């Protein structure tokens, strides 16, 4: 309880500082965002119009369905309403169906790209980083075009999800400009991913958002996958560095990403069960293989 109180008061202090520095940070962050978007828009010369079938696979990899579909309560696909408990309060996922008023049916592909890469709403406000744009910030242009095509093809559901119940005031959003300069990768550089597995793990699949430690500002300063003893819902999230996975074979990881079974025959629960059932279970086996191969590689580091 005391730890939580300290977190809340530090967060409040941080917010106050952020608000006072907002003018400077806003300009700086805006420049970073513009640069990221310009690099994105100039990338992938072979980019073609979105393919909604491929887009569903992007949505599965990116966990869109697990967070934006209230499966437990029979909610419609992508209609939102899923609660995410955090030290900052409860975030509720919004409706991202193709409905033009309560969903994102009126968005352009550039609006979707701004949301994913820069954490920007169409009205220019910042998204709270419960939406994992620090990971999505490296998403490839073709993936976003495909994802857009699929999102637009989903059933429109007219249903607004409830407001977030946060312990920090909504005007603190303005301070997120500073936050972004600290915790969103500075350059748009998806070209650095030579391996597809690394791109999936670090980008769309946003593993670090739960499997790496968050600081008091809710940022993930070090995206190494060394686990988080205080993950979402207060759950302890295991380390998944190559070192931590030394007893797992690549085939064990592939199998886990498909049905959630560990090498010992246990089945995962918690959020990971939804990540698998709504996400990685639907990927191509080549993509699961690529993720597993990257997780087991030296590039995914040791525990420390």
């Amino acid at each position, binding site marked *: 309880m005391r730890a939580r109180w300290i977190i809340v008061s530090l967060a409040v202090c941080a917010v106050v500082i952020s608000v006072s520095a907002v003018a400077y940070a806003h300009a700086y962050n805006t420049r970073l965002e513009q640069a990221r978007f310009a690099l994105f828009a100039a990338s992938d010369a072979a980019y073609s119009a979105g393919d909604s079938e491929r887009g569903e696979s992007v949505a599965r990899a990116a966990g869109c369905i697990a967070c934006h579909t209230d499966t437990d309560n029979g909610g419609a696909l992508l209609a939102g309403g899923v609660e995410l408990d955090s030290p900052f309060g409860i975030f509720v996922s919004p409706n991202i169906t193709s409905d033009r008023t309560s969903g994102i049916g009126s968005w352009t592909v550039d609006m979707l790209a701004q949301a994913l890469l820069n954490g920007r709403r169409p009205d220019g406000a910042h998204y709270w980083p419960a939406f994992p744009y620090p990971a999505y910030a490296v998403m490839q242009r073709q993936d976003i075009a495909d994802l857009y095509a699929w999102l637009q093809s989903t059933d429109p559901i007219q249903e607004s999800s409830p407001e977030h119940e946060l312990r920090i005031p909504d005007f603190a959003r303005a301070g997120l400009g500073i936050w972004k300069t600290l915790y969103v990768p500075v350059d748009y550089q998806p070209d650095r991913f030579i391996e597809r597995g690394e791109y999936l793990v670090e980008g769309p699949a946003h593993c670090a958002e739960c499997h790496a430690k968050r600081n008091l500002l809710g940022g993930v300063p070090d995206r190494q996958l060394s686990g988080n003893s205080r993950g979402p819902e207060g759950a302890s999230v295991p380390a998944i560095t190559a070192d931590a996975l030394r007893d797992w074979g690549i085939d064990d990881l592939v*199998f886990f990403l498909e049905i959630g079974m560990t090498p010992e025959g246990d089945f*995962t629960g918690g959020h990971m*069960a939804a990540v698998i059932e709504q996400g990685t279970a639907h990927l191509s086996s080549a993509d699961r293989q690529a993720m597993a191969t990257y997780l087991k590689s030296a590039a995914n580091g040791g525990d420390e």
Partner: protein
Amino acid sequence: MLGLGVMVVVSQAIAHTGASGIVKERMDAMSMLGDHAKSVGDMLKGKTAFNKEAVEMAAFAFIKHGEQIPALFPDTEMSRTGSKTEALPAIWTEWDDFVALATRFTEDSRALAAIATELNAGEQSIDEKSRAVRTAFFRASKSCSGCHERFRLEQD
């Protein structure tokens, strides 16, 4: 057969030290299921040779356990808060959903057992048998994750 028996005994002995009574009883039962799931999983991963008898043994264990689940989670103080328990209170506040998952698991396990029993030597290739078992095993396993997702405390 004997090897599997020994493995089950050993894993029961080392699992969940500190639990007692009904908590230990159900934890041991879960560990035993895990051993069976592992044996089928290892076959599907190609780590071990396809073995129809082991699939049947696993399916029968799943059926038996699925039928016992409600009785293994009585609404008692010991059951709710016994040392080492990972059972979440939602089990008792959402009891009908919990029992429905157990029932689905039992039914899906019966389907797995039926498929294993139908796999007669010579009529299908090992690949075909393996594919049939894979589909049925995957379906039954959804109840495992589905139940753990809502009703088990996840620990590191």
